[in-house]
């Protein structure tokens, strides 16, 4: 078992919010991912053992949700909203500016490990479109020429 004492403490705390250990699995994955950025096969196996859930079951949930990462990601996650409100307000131009600034396409991580760029469905910020998120910060509306400054704020 590779969990640190702090991870065990956090896992035990969230397990207490659910009627059984199994039901805590989705939140437990978020807790481990928050510290490690992504879930390796080993991390998933350890989590399965700790919760009494098979790895297959855990991976079934992990690969269903788009916010559980089963491959390494960068220090910051960039999400560009591609839903129809943002699409009609300049998504294509915003996406092109983000890809040019980072030098990577959707699903890729910058070479320095700083950013991973991912598509996202509606961010619920249609009145601020075109919108994007960097980690837990919502930005919008974002003009293409603002992209460099926004991303420059994340080291």
């Amino acid at each position, binding site marked *: 078992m590779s969990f640190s004492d702090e991870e065990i403490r956090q896992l035990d705390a969230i397990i207490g*919010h659910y*009627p059984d250990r*199994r*039901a*805590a*699995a*989705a*939140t437990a*994955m*978020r807790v481990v991912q928050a510290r490690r950025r992504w879930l390796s096969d080993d991390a998933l196996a350890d989590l399965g053992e700790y919760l009494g*859930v098979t790895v297959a079951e855990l991976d*079934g*949930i*992990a*690969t*269903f*949700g*788009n*916010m*559980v*990462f*089963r*491959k390494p*990601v960068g220090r910051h996650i960039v*999400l560009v909203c*591609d*839903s*129809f*409100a943002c*699409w*009609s*307000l300049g998504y*294509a*131009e915003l*996406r*092109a500016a983000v*890809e040019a600034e980072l030098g*990577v*396409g*959707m*699903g*890729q991580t910058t070479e320095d490990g700083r950013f*991973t760029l*991912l*598509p*996202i*469905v*509606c*961010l*619920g*910020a*249609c*009145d*601020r*479109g075109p919108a994007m*998120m960097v980690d*837990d910060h*919502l930005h919008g509306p974002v003009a293409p020429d603002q992209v460099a400054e926004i991303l420059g704020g994340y080291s």
Partner: protein
Amino acid sequence: MSSRPGLPGSSAEDRPFTRAMRADGRPATLDDYVAAGGYEGLRRAVAELKPPEVTSLVTESGLRGRGGAGYSTGRKWSTMPLGPDAPRPKYIVCNADEMEPGSFKDRFLMERNPHLLLEGMLLAGFATEADEGYVFLRAQYDASYAALQGAIGEARERGYLGEDILGSGFSFDIELHTSIGRYICGEASAMLNALESQRPNPRARPPHMTGAGLFSRPTVVNNVESYMAVPAIVRHGVDWWKGLSITDEGGTKIFGVAGRVANPGCFELPMGVPMRELIEVHAGGMLPGYALRAVSPGGASTSLVGAHEIDVPLGFATMGEVHSRLGTGTLVILDDQTCPVGMTLNMMQFFAQESCGWCTPCREGLQWMAALLEDIEYGRGRPGDLEVLAEGTWFMESDKCFCDLAPGATQPLESALRLFPEEFARHIADGGCPYRRHSSDAPAAEAPAAEAPVLEGTT
């Protein structure tokens, strides 16, 4: 974002959703909330009312689900088993998984007025003698999470949440649960699977969730705004609530406008406000150089409303008269310089991507519809494609699908084909999209994906 008075001369009391909101945009604190009459509904309920009486008030108010489906909130609550023999624990679940493209009101409400949600869930808990509440939040709503977490802490400290609330003997607590993503988690029964850390496919019904829901226990699932409507109904009564609306459906509602308008945002207005007034007065009208061509009235699963139909009052019954639904009541405007075919393609790609894959019409059919629309948009359309698309809207009607995802997806498609037949025909005849502004979508959408597959679990 800003909220506006509903009608000329209306008082703050007539804006139950936004009344306690702070001018600085930060979440209303418990003190802000109480100063605006907050928790008075809960105080009245625990002091004066029996649980079924609270449910009766909600039923008589005419309150219908504000998440899109429009089912009677009180009627749903009335099917929860009551009394000492009812299975325990019983649950109150809040659907805060706002994720349908074009829906942007629950974020506004939770970030600005979190205690209103807590009080609404507390009243639902009191009315159904429930024990525990969960707020199922979408992954990207970090600010909503922080606002609710702060409010829960304050409420526990001051005795509004937890054991023996306000000395009444009623106990109820609320936990926050953040989703790991996916639109289907917003389907109420799939949400319960997600909360249990099961794979979030929708469940077969019956049994209904109020009989066997979360962890197989009786469960109420309602939208954020539905819960938030309840405190004022309990505090001020049914007649007051009914008096707020223009139509007879009662209350105010959070409406929204997005697109090329002068003042996009969320607005608390009486139920039944004409769509035209919402757009032209409250949202400031179209930006110079743009004309309104159609409106998506309440999320991507609601049928588009044509420019000639925007005098319709925004209500559950009236929206049916223009072959659409109220949905979430947040409008997205299609302007005259944006391609209706491209927009429909964008919506269909969303639904195809977010299908859980459980039933065949949705899993296979949506992919077909999206592929056909992509062909038409990018110049590969053929005569006969429009007939296949029209057939697809029949093929994915609700009696042929396991849940409402695919039937919802057919609504924008069916309405776009009905409102813009000449645009679709022109795309096929002319070999592609005549709106140059979006032509950059095509290479950008395909090139990077070919080089490096998108991360597992991210699309």
